[in-house]
Each structure stands twice: as C-alpha cells, then as structure tokens.
C-alpha cells in the first residue's frame, strides 16, 4: 500500500522561524484530520546556519519520511541551493524574489567543501551563478517557481498592523510562507489561522499580528498565483482524538506515567528538550495526592547519573537523560549502579558521533558502546524504541524493569526520533500498571535482620529504601557481602557476581516476546530485514511498497538489546536466504551483535552515517536492489542535506 502524501518543506537560517512555521503547518494539517510526519534538520548553531523541516501529510497514518518535496518554502537563497533538487516534477518552490539575483557561491554560510560540491554540479549542468539561474534549471524539470517579494509584503503587513520596527515584521517571514503555501495547496484557510493563533496563544498581540500576516499572504498568493499548481491539501473529518507531538515529548509523558519523580540532567542536544518540558510541567495531576517531578540541572553528567542513583536509593523513581558525550561521562556511575543493583533509568538519545561529532544530527552508532559501557561485568537492561509510540510506552515500562530486577536500564533512542513530530490517536494509558518489585517496609522488617544483598534463588534481594526504620543497610562500589560491606573473599565474590548476573536470565524469561522484538511483513519470505530504532517506520513502509510489487520480505525489529532475545531471533533468521541489516552506523553494529549471539551473519548491509535519517524512499530503493540481486553487500545511503 503506497501511502500517498503531500510533502512540504520549509527551509531557512536557524532562528528564522523554520520550526515555528513547521509546527503551525503541522498543527493546521492535524486540525484538518490529516496525519503528519515531520523531520527536522538543523546545524549545531543558534542563528544563521541552514535548517529545514520536512512535513509529510496524508490521510493515512505515516510511519516515516520520504525524499520528495512537493512544495518548498525557501526563506532564503541557501534553501533553494540545498533543496531545489528534492522538489519533484510538478512541485513548487516559494522563493523571495529579492534573492533571485543572489550569486549562489556568494552565500556566506556555505562552507568551502560544499562550495566545491555545488561548483561541480553547476559545471556539469551548465548552471549560471544566480539563484535565478538555478531555478531556471528546476523549471526545466517542471517545477513551478513562485517568487514572492517577502519584504514588500511584510511592509504592507506592517502598515496594516501599525508596526514599523523592521525586526518585528521580518520575524514573520515564516508565517508569511505558510500563508502562501496553504493558498497554493488550497488548504482551508481557517485551519491555518487557528494553528497560527494557537501556536502564538501565549504571546498576546503577537498571535493576532501573525494571523493577519498569514491571511495577508494567503490572499496575496490566491490573487497572484493563478497557474495551476496541482497539489492539494484537503481536510477530512475525523472523530477520534489525536495529538501532535515529538519524540522528546512522548518520552517525557511516558516517564511521568511510569512514575519518574526525579529527573536529573545536564543540557545536551537532543536530550535537554525532554527535561525542560518536564520542568515546565513539573506539578502533576494524579488520581491520588499531590505529586510532582523534581527536575534538577546538575553541574555535569557525572553528577547527573550519580544523583539519579542516589535518588533511586530513597525509593523515588529516578532517571537521567543525555546523549553520547554525556553518557560517556556516566560510564563509571553506571558501573556503580550495576554493582549496587540500583534501579536507575538512563534515557540515551544517540546523535552523530564520535566526540562532539554532529551534535544536532542523527546516528545509531552507540549500540555496542551502551552494551559494554563500564568496566567489569554487571547486568543492565537495554530497550531500544523504534518510534514515538514505543518511546512513550517504553519510557514508562523501563521503570518497572528497573525496580523489578534492580538494575540500571538504558532506554536507547536517537535524534531522529527525538526531533521528529507526528500525529497519533491519543495514547491509551489508563491501564498502565506500576510494578515496584520486591520492597520491604518498616513493618515487614520489624524484629528482623535485614541484608540488602541477600543471596536468593533468583538473584533478586528484597529492597529497602533509605530512611526505612529497622532497615539500616549499606551500599558500596566495592565488591560486598550480603550486608553491603566490602568483601574481598573469593567465594563471596563468586556468589555475588553470579547473583547479579543471573538476574538477566530472569528478565529474559519474564519479559513478553512483544517487548523484545517486533515482527512485520511476511514471516515466510526468504528475505528478512534486521533493524532497531528509528529506521523502523521507513522499513515498514518500504516493505509494504515492495509487497505491492510482489517482492516479499519480513522485518524483525529488535527492541530489547540486553538481555538479547537470542533464541527468538535465531528462529526468525535461520535458513533465510537474505538477512539484511539496516542501521545508522558504519560498522553494522546490530549485525555484529546478531552474529555473535546467534551465529547468523547478515549478508547485506544498508547503512547510513551522514547524520541524516533514512527515508522510506531510500530504504525502498536499497531493498529493491537487494531483492532483485543487484545490490552490493554493503550499500551506504546518502540522501538528505
């Protein structure tokens, strides 16, 4: 089933309102009963460098993004240069007419290596040096160009508003392009206006100013562009309740649901938004008494993990949220938590790495790292969500796992998920159970001698929270005896190691299969895709497309990384003709893990490490090559600027 969609993109300098525009656009579509999938790209920069937002819109639920752009709203010249070729035939480009004469190679924000690239492109295609020359090239590919005198329009708007300050009006370029866009797409103006008003609702007069700008631009375009731009966005009527949200927001809500009451963090992209969102909503509505989530910005990530562990010992469900560089600093703390059996949760958003890497870009190259992070051997659970909905439920579940098995849990996410935005039917959470595991209270302990690390059949010792009467006990990062005191005795050491490690066997046994992996597509097909994390949506969409063409394919999404569902995966993979590993990294890390665990070696790899997430288009193309025996063993995807 090919999901038909209209694909709109806004691009411009970071700080010029690309995000806001896209949010308005997405909401407006949501109000019209449409599904939205938004992909957001931006530099590690606050103002000036290129950013863009791709909104895919459909009447059908969307799982991923695609390459195509039907309508590009270019705030500036660079956007034209970077995205022109993504616009499909019969698509359109909204461009500032003042930029038409800009010389492409004079755009100051283009780095030399990119200039070299486009220089080559210009030469190959005999392109002139101005934006206009470039657009002429597009026109030859049947792309409509809609030049709009942004400044002139803004001045008209400013006059209507009685605002003269240039900076105040230029800020509205974004809303202006939405007005133009919706007009071109013939979308319901009222929904656009409502989205504008809602988005700026907390900013008083600004909301009205923007609404006026929107309408002015809408009118202008309706009057000006009479050529028959064929793409249409039409509202439909729906009855179900839907939400429009990002991965960060889904995780935050999931955490609250799961009982998280202490969140520590040190600012880092793309994790910090989650913590700030939580702090903004710190006082919780509950069916019981007063509750709140305490969000603490610590001095660094070392403090973040260790404070969270400290909090967890008191009985508060506690988490910290970070990305690669921060997690690198948490490794020692993780090791302590593992050794002391602390139920602490680490939400880990992968991004382009190594080092500072591509701080605002996507990556999935930290799988092996999280699996083995920390000196020594200790149990941990790793759950990798594959989409926003999983983000939500997993973010809640991890706290149950952490407390039940008394282990640190890593919830593994990535930038693509964190920053994409999607519409969903309102999440159902009414029956989400809280399982706190084995906890002893003051009463239970009366007259007893409590040993925190008592040897038990399962390896799980009943917990007592710090502060509980009759339950005084000790923790140490050293190897310890049942009381929690330092012990260097060999036989105690052996038993303690085994006590800790065997908890993983229990997890393996008790966690239901559907939380460990997802299976999609055709179970019986001779080819199977193997993946984890954010490629999920693109893979499912691609499989569906291939299915339509009679190319059959299964897809196993690995959700639980540790303990690894070895048996199940082996069963699914064994005997397949093609095992196709798809991930956002260089080494094909999941493929390696699968090989190590199951003995099955993936024979095809579709990898991407440009920092940009895979699209359905790319995955479809690459898989088709594999299935038609035209692919190399290793395909490296490159789409996206």
């Amino acid at each position, binding site marked *: 089933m090919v999901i038909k969609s209209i694909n709109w993109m806004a691009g411009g300098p970071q700080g010029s309102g690309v995000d806001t525009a896209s949010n308005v656009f997405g*909401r407006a579509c949501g*109000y019209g009963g449409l599904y939205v999938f938004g992909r957001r790209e931006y530099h590690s920069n606050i103002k000036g460098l290129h950013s863009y937002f791709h909104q895919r819109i459909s009447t059908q639920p969307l799982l991923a993004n695609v390459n195509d752009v039907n309508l590009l709203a270019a705030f500036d010249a660079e956007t034209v240069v970077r995205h022109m070729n993504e616009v499909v035939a019969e698509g359109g480009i909204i461009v500032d007419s003042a930029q038409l004469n800009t010389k492409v190679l004079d755009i100051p924000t283009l780095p030399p290596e990119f200039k070299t690239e486009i220089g080559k492109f210009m030469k190959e295609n005999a392109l002139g040096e101005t934006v206009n020359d470039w657009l002429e090239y597009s026109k030859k590919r049947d792309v409509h160009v809609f030049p709009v005198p942004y400044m002139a329009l803004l001045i008209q708007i400013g006059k209507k508003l009685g605002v003269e300050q240039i900076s105040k009006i230029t800020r509205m370029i974004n809303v202006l392009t939405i007005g133009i866009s919706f007009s071109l797409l013939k979308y319901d103006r009222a929904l656009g206006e409502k989205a504008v008003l809602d988005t700026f609702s907390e900013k008083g007069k600004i909301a009205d100013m923007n609404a006026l700008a929107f309408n002015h631009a809408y009118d202008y375009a309706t009057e000006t562009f009479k050529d028959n731009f064929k793409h249409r966005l039409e509202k439909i009527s729906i009855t*179900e309740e*839907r*939400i*429009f949200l990002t991965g960060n*927001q889904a995780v935050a*809500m999931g955490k*609250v*649901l799961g009982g998280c*009451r*202490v969140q520590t963090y040190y600012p880092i992209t793309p994790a910090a938004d989650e913590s700030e969102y939580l702090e903004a909503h*710190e006082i*919780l*509505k*509950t*069916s019981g*008494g007063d*509750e*709140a989530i*305490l969000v*603490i910005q*610590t*001095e660094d990530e*070392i*403090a973040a993990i*260790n*404070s969270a562990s*400290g*909090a967890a*010992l*008191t*009985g*508060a469900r*506690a988490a910290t949220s970070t990305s690669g560089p921060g997690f690198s600093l948490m490794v020692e*703390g993780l090791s302590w938590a593992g050794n002391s059996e602390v139920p602490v949760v680490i939400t880990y958003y992968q991004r382009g790495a190594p080092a500072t890497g591509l701080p605002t870009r996507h990556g999935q190259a930290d799988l092996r790292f999280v699996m083995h992070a920390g000196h020594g051997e200790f149990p941990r659970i790793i759950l990798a969500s594959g989409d926003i909905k999983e983000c939500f439920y997993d973010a*809640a579940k991890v706290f149950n796992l952490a407390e039940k098995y008394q282990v640190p849990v890593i919830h593994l996410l990535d930038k693509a998920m964190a920053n994409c935005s999607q*519409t969903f039917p*309102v999440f159902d*959470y009414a029956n*989400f*159970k*809280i*399982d*706190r595991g084995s906890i002893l209270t003051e009463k239970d302990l009366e007259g007893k001698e409590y040993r925190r690390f008592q040897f038990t059949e399962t390896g799980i010792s009943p917990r007592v*929270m*710090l*502060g509980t*009467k*009759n339950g*005084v*006990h*000790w*923790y*140490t*990062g050293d190897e310890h005896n049942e*009381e*929690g*005191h*330092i012990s260097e005795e060999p036989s105690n050491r052996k038993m303690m190691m085994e006590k800790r490690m065997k908890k993983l066997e229990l997890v393996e046994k008790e966690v239901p299969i559907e939380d460990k992996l997802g299976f999609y597509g055709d179970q019986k097909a001779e080819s199977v895709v193997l993946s984890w994390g954010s490629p999920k949506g693109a893979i499912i969409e691609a499989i569906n497309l291939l299915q339509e063409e009679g190319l059959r394919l299964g897809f196993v999404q690995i959700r639980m990384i540790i303990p690894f569902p070895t048996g199940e995966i082996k069963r699914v993979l064994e005997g397949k003709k093609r095992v196709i590993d798809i991930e956002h990294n260089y080494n094909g890390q999941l493929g390696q893990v699968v090989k190590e665990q199951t003995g099955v070696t993936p024979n095809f790899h579709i990898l991407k490490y440009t920092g940009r997430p895979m699209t359905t288009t790319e995955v479809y193309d690459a898989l088709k090559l594999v299935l038609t025996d035209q692919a190399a063993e290793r395909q490296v995807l490159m789409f996206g600027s």
Partner: protein
Amino acid sequence: MVLKPIDFKVADVYADWCPGCGDFGIMNGVQMAFAELGLEPHQIVMVSGIGCSGKEPHNVKCFGVHTLHGRALPFAMGIKAANPALEVVAIGGDGDGLGIGAGHFVNAGRRDLDMTYIIHNNGVYGLTKGQASPTLRRDEKTKALPRPNINEPVNPIGLALISGFTFAARSYAYDVRHLKDTIKQAVQHKGMAFVECLQPCPTYNDITTKDWYAGEDRKDAQGKPQSRLYKLDEIGWDPVVKDWNEDFKKKMAALEKTQEWGDRIPIGVFYKNELEPTFQERYSKRVPFYLTNPPAKQKLVDDNGNSNVDLKQFLDELKTS
C-alpha cells in the same frame, strides 16, 4: 529511646585504618555527634567517596552509601533532594573532595542543600599509597613522594566560602570532643555545611603529624608541648551572620582566618549564615508540598495498581482534534 555513641557502632566490621589513623577519631566524633543529636540510625544517611576515609560509613550504624571516588556530593544531593527528611552527611578525603571532586564541591555550594560535608584533610591520597593531595603545600615532600609536591595547595574553607557554603568550620581528628561539637553544629545548620577535619595520616604524611599539631617540637620552659591548634571560640570569634549587611565582612574575616597556618592554626566555626534560603526552601516555593510529599514518598500508583498520573495536562496541549 536515647541512643549512645556505641549504638552507632557496627559490630562485625573491622575498621581497617592504620593504627593511629585520624580516621578513628573522626568516626568516633561522628558517632558521638549522632547520638547527642538524638538521631536514630534510620534517619541518617552517610555518603562517602573512595579513599581510606571513604570506608567510614561501614563503621557507622546508619544507612551507608560508599560511592565512587569524588562523587559523594552528587550521590548525597540526589538522596537529600529526593527525600529531604533524611539527615544526609557526606564525607570523603581531600583528594576525593578537592581533587577529582572539586567541580561538585564548587557547585554544591551554589545549590545550598541542607546537608553536611566533612572532608578528611590528611594532605595525601591515603588509600593509593601516599601521593600528594590538593591540600599538601608546595615543595613539601611526604614519605611516598618521589619528588617534592609541585603544586600550590587549595584552601578548603576558602573554597567553601567562595562557593556559597553557608557554614564553614574546621576541626581536628584527635580532638574528638571539639570535632563532635563541630559536626553537631554542621548537621544542625540550616543549609550546606562544610567541615574541614585535619586528619593526621601516620603512615604517609610525616609533615603534619599528630606530634606536629600537638607542638611536640616546640615545648615551653616546662617541657610542655605548645599545641599549634587553638579554638576560635576561645578568641571570641563570632561566625554568625545576623543580617545580610555583615555577610561579606564576616566571609572576608573568615577567609583571613584561613591564612593562619604554621604556628597558630584556628579550629572551630569560621562562618555561618542561615539567612540564605536553602534549596529545599527555594524549591518549596514552586512545589509547596515538596517537604510533606517529596519524590521518595509519592505514591505513583492507584488502588488498582495503575499509574496514578493523569496525562490530561500534557495531552490537552498536544491535541489537534
């Protein structure tokens, strides 16, 4: 039930410090202070870093959290913030707190959680066999050093004052009485309290030894050693800031006092300010029920075992239909 220091002893743990180590004194001081404060073991959490000093919680009967090298404060902060009803006492070595842990030290001052931090200042990294700690003076060469110390020392109390600790004191491991009193004051202080405890390390520090502090090398005419330590109390030192106007002055005076070293070394409370609102007070302004229903005590769950959270406040903002 009024407890005695002995009730804070741990029966089956051997305190494995070297004979004569100042850590014994500090352990006793802590136990006595807890007893006199009328605390019960379950009300207290002792959090430590790694080092000889870091083992202390295993020898004190209250909740003990022996953490990582340099990380006592972050753990303590998480514990205290999640359950402000607990009496949290963090302790550690000078390397632990002022070397690897210096960043937490500085930032803990800014946060002003109502807890106590005791640093065992022995001038060396004891447990790793005697390297220079950040408090060792420049050019000094303790036993285990292949070369004299190349760095200037840090000034612990000075650093605490500049970092915003609202209580700063110094005591001495072998003056258990004074130490006990100082710790009591630190625990009772409303705000983040710092105690620097001078601690001879007979094994590795052959410079600031017990004898040196006691002035065995400078006897008076009667042959009586002239102790280098004197008590701030005895010179009528008033560390307490009674109104904000005198705050800076008192801080500076305290700082000046830290300059005394060598022949006269002051011990006692250098500075104390309870005017500053604590983290607990600050946060309670935002979340009024924080102290009555802190994170550690929240229910999370309803009677059916479901999460008690109503996500409506989030969802309403996100709804498109």
